[in-house]
């Protein structure tokens, strides 16, 4: 699924292709889960959020309109809405049991960092395999350029120039990507 555009995967999902849903999961589930642990505060609820979001993607894929927003923007909105719903639902349940409403929940993504994260995820998915690899190893595995060289068996100079090229490609992808409001 690597390298296939999100919008193509969504069309496959709309036709009932679970593998395509798995491809989108690989790209975005980390952000959804991260949002869950941050805003819902526990891993069980974060797992519920991931399930809710991808069930929603599955059910509504045939209504996704790429002319209105990119897939990353669409799935971001689903995530934010579902996180808000889960916070409210939990709040309602707690109030039913205790009688006292808990403190107002934090609004999901007040700084916009989650929204930008979805944009970066989309841009990263569109890079070549070699470009994506160096960025993932550096930013997600925390490897230095030297460690990436050792891990991949690539000369250090090549790792450095490849990293530079990958970051450049990412910027270009983000500046050209479809914008969603």
């Amino acid at each position: 699924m690597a390298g296939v555009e999100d919008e193509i995967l969504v069309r496959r999902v709309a036709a009932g292709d679970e593998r395509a849903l798995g491809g989108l999961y690989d790209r975005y589930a980390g952000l959804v889960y991260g949002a869950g642990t941050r805003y819902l505060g526990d891993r069980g609820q974060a797992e519920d959020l991931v399930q809710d979001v991808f069930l929603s993607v599955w059910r509504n894929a045939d209504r996704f309109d790429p002319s209105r927003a990119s897939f990353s923007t669409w799935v971001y909105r689903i995530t934010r809405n579902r996180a808000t719903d889960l916070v409210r639902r939990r709040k309602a349940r707690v109030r039913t049991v205790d009688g006292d409403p808990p403190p107002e929940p934090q609004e999901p993504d007040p700084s916009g960092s989650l929204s930008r994260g979805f944009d970066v995820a989309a841009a990263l998915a569109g890079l070549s395999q070699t470009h994506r690899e160096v960025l993932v190893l550096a930013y997600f595995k925390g490897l230095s350029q030297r460690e990436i060289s050792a891990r991949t068996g690539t000369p250090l100079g090549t790792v450095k120039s490849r990293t530079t090229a990958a970051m450049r490609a990412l910027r270009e992808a983000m500046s050209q990507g479809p914008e969603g409001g």
Partner: protein
Amino acid sequence: MSEHPETRDLLGPFVMGDLDPAEKRAVEEHLENCASCRQEVESLRLAHENLVEFAAASEAPPEHLKDRAVAGMPGPAARRLVPPWAAAAAAALLLAAGLAYGTSLLGGREVAAATLEPTDRAPRAGGEVKVMGGGENAEVRLEAWGLPACEGEEYYELWLVEGEERVSAGTFSVGKSGEVEVVLNAPEFADAYPQVGITAETDTDPSPGDAKMLGGKLRGT
């Protein structure tokens, strides 16, 4: 660009802070005299900040979650068909008229919402109602849980309430899970009603039944 390919190739690790001291010094000296590379550094720094933020916002979900979240989805043909629990003809007709599954999540913004509180008939039930859009183009999103499953020709109905006035916002059924999530066609100015309620119904009488299951105050958002 072609006169200094080596320095230019180092700009990514430079903004990441991952050059050895000699390389770093060489890049800094070069930048003092090269506007094009300074511009490139600014662009790469944005990429760097985007990636740092992205990595911080992400967290690897547990391995087992993918199977649960992706596999075993209902077939696409079932997405907007009336579910099997609504086989009773009268209920099915009402459902077909009142429900619209999966209405766009990108619809209008939320203009009113209510937290549904239980009655004695369903003490463990709860729910949320949201009115999206407003005016003539509103939709009502309902999520409820803990409701008794419908049997036979039973169904539930959501009402907008003001004083003695009751306006139906649509009907729905609930399966064994007791949970439901539906988007209903909103009556005009649905967001202007002060209260909402859900009743259990068994007939085709258009007026509300007596079996109130959930209720709540609708507040503007």
